[in-house]
């Protein structure tokens, strides 16, 4: 038995379960050279792997165009010829030959100017991984396939991993990397999965199937607990759940401050499933619908129709308020089907509204889909990362263009749809008064606002202690945004982590915040905090 103390809690709760290690496979090829006598065997291995990959892709190709294109590349003559020449002519083993040829081709495409052709480099690499899996006998790990209760331990979890998590089977998460505002933390919190992040070296201490107790709120991990410790944790888990039950009973009350101001309690979600899960908590709406998940989980830019179906379902589930943030990609969020150029400073680079305004046709598909969904509920559109009134006006003009088109096509939408913006850049704070005249609402994104105001990278572990939304500069900025918004009579909400932090609630109420939007897991706590003021 060993007790490990951890500083960073991403999502509270207690778990007792066996460990499941989620590891990115080792893709490095064997380096050895082969003899002439082994040549036929290596060629055979490659041909068998190629055959298997093509079968696998044929099955996927009927459902998806991307895999149809992959199938064509996997069967390509030059790819095959190149690999076989390395095996037969250069005495390289099959793994090394595949690796080298795939890298050579990928490099050619990645060096092209054309964004579309650059993407083909990723396609070739993906096919290379498939071939390598077959050659190395690697089984793909898929967290969506888990069918028993486990604590997932990983170096880090990527958005594509976390979207597949099911709270039914994943009882806890421990990662070596990542901070409390990283992607995995946000997802885990919304699903109420106890999670500890940034636990250095933990993978060396855990083994698959090892029994572990964890108290994420206190930051304690106990490996191979003795019987009585295990009992103690099970009891703590029960007590914790009873407290949650008490908070649940408060759901029958409205969130009203001691001054009698009705506060809007909303959730941040990534899909309709998250909304369904949050409805139990008696929410006042969705303060942030992260539309990027729709793009990240897809194999292509989702079409207007595909997006419309998703937004319509969300609008119907949540008729009081559904705030959809337009695509916020770039920074740390990437797309499998679109290659972003490597940037020195991705958080200061081509992301969010900058991409949308540059890729107008794609942006219009999204805006048209949101507008059409607005016929089915109270939908609001929110633009991310705005730094100048010109940008906001440009985005609004494109929305107006979409409205005109839809009206001509006879398609229904809400003509008075509110168009608001995220307040997350220092520029937006300094120009808040001007923005308040243009925007129908504000929503403060404290994660980026803190990072940009303090010049502290929120993903950098070395300076994590300097990332602090209680810093006077951040608090002053929030007060300024609320004041500027109220001066023009618009509602000011917050959808960053700070809105779900009960230590900040009193302060935010004093500053006059109208709407708190957070992951579903924090709603009960924040409601209790607002109601506590009354007593």
């Amino acid at each position, binding site marked *: 038995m060993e007790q490990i103390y951890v500083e960073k809690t991403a999502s509270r709760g207690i778990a007792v379960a066996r460990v499941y290690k989620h590891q990115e496979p080792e893709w490095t090829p064997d380096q050895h050279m082969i003899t002439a006598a082994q040549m036929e065997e290596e060629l055979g291995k490659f041909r068998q792997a190629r055959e298997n990959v093509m079968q696998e892709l044929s099955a996927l190709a009927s459902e998806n165009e991307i895999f149809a294109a992959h199938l*064509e590349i996997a069967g390509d003559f*030059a790819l095959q010829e190149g690999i076989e020449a390395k095996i037969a002519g250069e005495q390289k083993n099959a793994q090394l030959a595949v690796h080298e040829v795939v890298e050579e081709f990928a490099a050619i495409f990645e060096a092209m100017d054309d964004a579309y052709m650059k993407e083909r480099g990723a396609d070739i690499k993906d096919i290379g991984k498939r071939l390598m899996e077959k050659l190395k006998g690697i089984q793909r790990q898929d967290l969506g396939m888990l069918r028993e209760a486990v604590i997932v331990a990983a170096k880090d979890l990527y958005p594509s991993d976390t979207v597949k998590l099911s709270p039914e089977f994943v009882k806890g998460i421990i990662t070596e990397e990542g901070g409390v505002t990283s992607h995995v933390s946000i997802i885990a919190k919304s699903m109420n999965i106890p999670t500890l992040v940034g636990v250095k070296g933990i993978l060396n201490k855990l083994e698959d199937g090892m029994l572990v107790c964890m108290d994420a709120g206190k930051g304690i991990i106990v490996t191979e607990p003795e019987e009585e410790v295990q009992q103690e944790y099970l009891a703590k888990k029960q007590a914790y759940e009873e407290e949650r039950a008490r908070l649940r009973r408060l759901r029958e009350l409205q969130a009203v401050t001691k001054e009698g101001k009705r506060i809007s309690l909303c959730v941040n979600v990534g899909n309709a499933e998250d909304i369904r899960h949050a409805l139990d908590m008696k929410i006042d709406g969705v303060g942030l619908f992260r539309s990027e998940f729709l793009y990240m989980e897809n194999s292509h830019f989702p079409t207007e129709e595909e997006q419309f179906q998703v937004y319509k379902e969300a609008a119907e589930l949540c008729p009081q308020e559904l705030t959809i943030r337009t695509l916020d990609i770039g920074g740390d969020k990437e797309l499998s089907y679109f290659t972003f150029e490597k940037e020195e400073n991705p958080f200061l680079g081509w992301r969010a509204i900058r991409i949308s305004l540059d890729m107008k046709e794609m942006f219009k598909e999204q805006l048209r889909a949101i507008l059409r969904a607005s016929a089915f509920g109270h939908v609001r559109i929110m633009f991310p990362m705005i730094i100048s009134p010109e940008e906001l006006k440009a985005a609004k003009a494109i929305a107006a263009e979409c409205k005109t088109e839809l009206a001509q096509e006879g398609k229904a939408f809400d003509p008075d749809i509110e168009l608001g913006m995220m307040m997350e850049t220092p520029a937006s704070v300094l120009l808040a008064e001007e923005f308040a005249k243009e925007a129908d609402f504000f929503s403060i994104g404290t994660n980026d606002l803190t990072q940009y105001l303090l010049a502290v990278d929120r993903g950098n572990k070395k300076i994590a202690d300097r990332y602090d939304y209680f810093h006077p500069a951040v608090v002053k900025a929030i007060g300024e945004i609320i004041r500027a918004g109220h001066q023009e009579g618009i509602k000011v909400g917050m959808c960053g982590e700070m809105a779900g932090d009960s230590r900040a609630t009193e302060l935010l109420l004093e500053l006059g915040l109208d709407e708190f939007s957070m992951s579903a897991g924090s709603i009960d706590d924040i409601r209790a905090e607002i109601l506590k003021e009354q007593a």
Partner: protein
Amino acid sequence: MVSQKVIITNPSGLHARPASVLAQAAGKCGSDVLLLYGEKQIQAKSILNIMAAAIKSGSEVEIRCSGETEEEDLKKIVALIESGLGE
């Protein structure tokens, strides 16, 4: 060996889709089909080679066929490129 020069008219050059049509057609030819583009010699049977050559719209490409069916293959490939490769 026979050869003929053609101009690529596809608006985005030999992008994925036209490259795929060309590679499939070349794959069915009995002779070896090469594209000569500037300094490059491209195996027309390979969609990867065609795409990697990044042949732009309006460029001149020489088609070279060698093998038993070279005459009819050349005609077929030239006609296909001139028809816009399915675009």
